[in-house]
C-alpha cells in the first residue's frame, strides 16, 4: 500500500510486523458472569506469511479474527496492524473471508466482486474491468451474470475469494473458508488459494480446526488452547513450495510435522471436550 518507491530489501527491513498482538484479551459479559474467550495472547505475524491458527472448536479463533478485522473491540492488551493501533476496521489493508459465504444475494457474481471497489470510489468502468478479471481468475468466466442462488457452494466460495482479492488487501483473514466444501473442491480451492497468495504476496491468517489443512497450507502454525484461547505452541512448517495440497499429505516430512503438532492439539481437543 506504500506509495514511496524504495528498494525491496530496505522496505522489507523497515516494514513493521503485519500483525502484532501483545497480551491480547477478550471477555464477554453473559448471563452467568464474565466468560473469557481470549487470554493474554502474544504473537507476531510477519508480512507475506501464511499463518494457520488451529485449536479445538469454540476456542475463540473466530473471535480473534473479528478483533483483528476491527469488528469486535479487544477487552485488554494491544494490537498493532503494520505498527498502528486502534480498534477501527481498516478496510483497505484487511480482507476477511467468512466460513459461510456472505455474498449479497441481490447482486450478480460480477456486481458482488465490484462492490468493494465501488465502495472505495473506483469509477464504474474500471471496477467492472478489474472485477471481470478476477471472476475469470477464480475460474468463473461465463458465470458473471449469475446470482448467488444460481451458483454452487464452491462457486460462491470462489466469488467470495475474488471479492476479497480484488481490492488487494495486504492482510487476509480466513475463517474456515473451505469447511463446507466437499474434499475434491476443497483441495482444488486450497491449491488455487496458494497460487493466488504466491502471486499477491499478501499475509494470510487462516483459521481452521483441521490440522491436515493447516500443515498443507501454512508457513507457520500456532496451536491455541481450549477456551480461553492462549498460545499452546508455535511451529514452523518446513515444507517446500510450491505445494500440491493433495499430494503433499503423503510425504514423510508432512506426516512428521503433522504428528508433532497433533500431540499438542490432541490434548487441547480433549480438554475442550472434558469441559462440556
Amino acid at each position, binding site marked *: 500500500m506504500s506509495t514511496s518507491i524504495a528498494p525491496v530489501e530496505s522496505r522489507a527491513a523497515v516494514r513493521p510486523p503485519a500483525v502484532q498482538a501483545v497480551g491480547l484479551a477478550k471477555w464477554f459479559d453473559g448471563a452467568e458472569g464474565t466468560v473469557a474467550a481470549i487470554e493474554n495472547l502474544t504473537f507476531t505475524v510477519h508480512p507475506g506469511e501464511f499463518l494457520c491458527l488451529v485449536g479445538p472448536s469454540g476456542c475463540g479463533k473466530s473471535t480473534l479474527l473479528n478483533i483483528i*478485522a476491527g*469488528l469486535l473491540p479487544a477487552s485488554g492488551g494491544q494490537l498493532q496492524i503494520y505498527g498502528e493501533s486502534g480498534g477501527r*476496521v481498516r*478496510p*483497505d489493508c*484487511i*480482507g*476477511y473471508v*467468512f466460513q*459461510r459465504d*456472505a*455474498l*449479497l*444475494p*441481490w*447482486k*450478480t457474481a460480477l456486481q458482488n466482486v465490484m*462492490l*468493494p471497489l465501488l*465502495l*472505495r470510489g473506483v469509477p464504474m468502468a474500471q471496477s467492472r474491468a478489474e472485477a471481470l478479471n478476477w471472476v475469470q481468475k477464480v475460474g468463473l468466466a461465463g458465470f458473471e451474470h449469475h*446470482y*448467488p*442462488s*444460481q451458483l454452487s457452494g464452491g462457486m460462491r466460495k470462489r466469488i467470495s475469494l475474488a*471479492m*476479497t482479492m480484488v*481490492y488487494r488487501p495486504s492482510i487476509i483473514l480466513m475463517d474456515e473458508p473451505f469447511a463446507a466444501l466437499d474434499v475434491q473442491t476443497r483441495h482444488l480451492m486450497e491449491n488455487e488459494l496458494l497460487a493466488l497468495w504466491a502471486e499477491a504476496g499478501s499475509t494470510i491468517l487462516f483459521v481452521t480446526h483441521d490440522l491436515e489443512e493447516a500443515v498443507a497450507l501454512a508457513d507457520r502454525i500456532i496451536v491455541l488452547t481450549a477456551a480461553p484461547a492462549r498460545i499452546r505452541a508455535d511451529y514452523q512448517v518446513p515444507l517446500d513450495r510450491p505445494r500440491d495440497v493433495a499430494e503433499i499429505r503423503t510425504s514423510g516430512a508432512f506426516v512428521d510435522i503433522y504428528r508433532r503438532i497433533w500431540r499438542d492439539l490432541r490434548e487441547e481437543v480433549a480438554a475442550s471436550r472434558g469441559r462440556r
Partner: protein
Amino acid sequence: MAGGSYPVAASRYRPAAKVLVLPVLLGAWEGAVRVGVLDPFYTSSPVPILATIVRWIATGYVLEHVLATLAVTLAGLAGGVVIGAVAGFALGFLRWLERVALPFLTAANAMPRIILYPLMVLWLGFGPLSRIVLVASLVVFPALLTTHSAIRQVDVEIVRNARVLGARRLGLIRHVYLPAVALWLFSTIRVTIGFALAGAIVGEYVGAVRGMGMVIAFAQSMFRAREVLAGTAVLLAVIWLIDLGLRAAEHAAARWRLSEVM
C-alpha cells in the same frame, strides 16, 4: 433450475378451469334475470352493465373519474409508502426510538383508520387532499412495520461482510438494506393497494365532485343498480391491471430470487 417440472405440470390444467369460471357465472346471472328468477331492478344483469361501461368509455365519462380516483390512490399510496419506509428505516437503526415508538405504532396499525376520515375532512376539507391523507394513513403503518422487520431480518453475516469490504453507513443502506427492504415493500404495496383504493372510494362517497366513488354513490342514490355494478366492474378491472403491472415489476426486481422460488 432443475425443479421446474411441478409448476409446468400444474399450469397445464389451470387455464381451462380459469377461463370457464367467469363466463359460467355471468351466463348464470344473465339467464336467471331473463327467466325471471332475479329482479333486474336490484341485480341488473351482465349485458346491460357491459353496455353501460361501453357507453361510459365511448363518451369519456368514466376516464375522468377513474383518473381522479387513481390520482388520489397513487398519491396516497406513494406518500404512505415513502413516509412508512423512511420511518421504518429510522426505527430499524435507532434502538431507543424502536423501544419508545413501536408499541404505539403496532396499536395504530390495528386501529381502523377509516373512522378518522370525518376528522380529516374537518381539517382538510372535501377536496382530494383529505382523501390522499386517508389513503396514506391506511398504507403508512403496514409499510413502516414491514420495512422495520425487513431491516431486522437482514443477515448479520452479510452486514459484517459488507463492512469488512469497506461499506460505511451510506454504503450499507444503498447496497444491503435498500435491496433487502425493496422486495418486502413491493409485496406490501401489492397487499395495501386494495386498502388504498377502498380508502379513496369511501372518501369519494361523501362530498367528492369527481371519482368512481362519487359515480357509484350517485347511482346508488338514484336506485340504479346497473350503474353501481358497472362502476364496481370498472374498479375491479383497474385493480386487476394495477396488480398485473405490480407483479411484473416485482418479478423484474426480484430476479435474484428466481431460482429459490422455483
